[in-house]
């Protein structure tokens, strides 16, 4: 008689995870092996018993009043204005996200302001963009610095998104990835165009706008995760 089939394959067989050929091979073995047949039988029974356990349980204690008092303390159904306070215990991941979130917002404000100052070419309102199609020599480095800062912040947020992606619902994650893919495409287009025309105010502005958009999307992802 052939050696017994390893347990992993027997689990896969019971759960119908094997291919047709492999499944048939297991069946042939089971015809002549009482040991493996017993294992399969017991396993199938256990899985069936577990699947038939009740899916609902009654709660004896009143849980609603506690929930009501917590939701009545200011936090509404929103993904941006997250609840803060004693009912949201500190979580390892949220602290990290929170710090980066704050850093991202500051970065967006400071870098965006710096770039706009440079793009405008003055500090008192500046000329309309349409009248300044090209950047001065000082503006380009400012844009480059901001771009680099965005890249760094985005990279860190992306790393943490990877870490916390399993905390998001699949549909949320899919929507998030679609949004990020669209923005990344726009960023790539802007960079490619800037290679041809590095002093274009419009293209530099587009690049920074797209970076800000990406940062905002990542911030929203952080907000959804840091609960």
């Amino acid at each position, binding site marked *: 008689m052939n050696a017994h089939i390893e*347990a*992993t394959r027997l*689990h896969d067989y019971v759960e119908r995870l094997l291919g047709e050929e492999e499944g048939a091979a297991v069946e042939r073995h089971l015809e002549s092996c009482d040991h493996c047949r017993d294992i399969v039988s*017991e*396993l199938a029974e*256990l*899985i069936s*018993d*577990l*699947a038939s*356990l*009740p*899916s*609902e*349980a*009654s*709660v*004896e*204690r009143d*849980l*609603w009043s*506690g*929930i*009501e008092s*917590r*939701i*009545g303390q*200011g*936090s*509404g*159904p*929103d*993904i*941006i*204005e*997250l*609840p803060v306070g004693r*009912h949201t*215990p500190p*979580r*390892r*991941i949220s602290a990290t996200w929170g710090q980066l979130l704050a850093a991202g917002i500051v970065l967006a404000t400071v870098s965006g302001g710096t770039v706009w100052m440079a793009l405008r070419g003055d500090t008192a309102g500046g000329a309309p963009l349409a009248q300044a199609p090209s950047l001065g020599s000082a503006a380009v480095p400012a844009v480059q610095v901001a771009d680099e800062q965005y890249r760094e912040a985005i990279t860190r947020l992306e790393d943490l998104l990877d870490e916390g992606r*399993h*905390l998001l*619902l*699949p*549909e*949320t994650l899919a*929507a998030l990835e679609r949004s990020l893919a669209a923005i990344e495409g726009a960023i790539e287009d802007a960079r490619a165009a800037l290679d041809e025309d590095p002093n274009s105010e419009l293209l530099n502005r587009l690049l920074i706008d797209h970076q800000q958009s990406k940062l905002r999307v990542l911030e929203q992802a952080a907000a*959804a995760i840091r*609960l």
Partner: protein
Amino acid sequence: MGSVPLRTTELQGAEDPTPLELVRRAQGGDSQAFQKVYETNVGRVYALCLRMSGDPQRAEELTQDVFVRAWEKLALFRGESRFSTWLHRLAINVVLQDRRTRGRRGDREQTTADLDIYGAAAQKAMPGTRVDLERAIAGLPEGARRIIVLRDVQGYKYDEIAEITGVSLGTVKAQIHRARALVREALER
């Protein structure tokens, strides 16, 4: 909507709102509608929390956390899946996140006395359930317990569990095999 004060709308008199209508009202800040949502779903959420935590008292706290979190995140529900499915997934995340927050400091082996208390609570909460099986699940190490509940009780696929728990497919499979073996051992005792 985060700063919108709690509102209630008259739910009596008119025809009963559908579950989705209640969710929509709750998304607008209607706490009375959300209470109806709670009443409809609390049984499934509590059963999940009870089995995944193996602790009746902790399960109650987790159930409350789930609904508070659901209230806060209602805007994320777009109606692309059933609300109960969305809520169930949220509940799993809350339980798993609780484990990560507590770290290993919250882990300790269940004593016979713990399992007696758990068995009694499970029987009371789920009359007709197989108490020996419930006790065997509750007595598993935490990781194995979570996986077997997700796979064999809740019916999630292996790749879904890998995604939810953040561990590899191979690890998930290894854990489920081990968990089943441990449950069988416990049942034979």
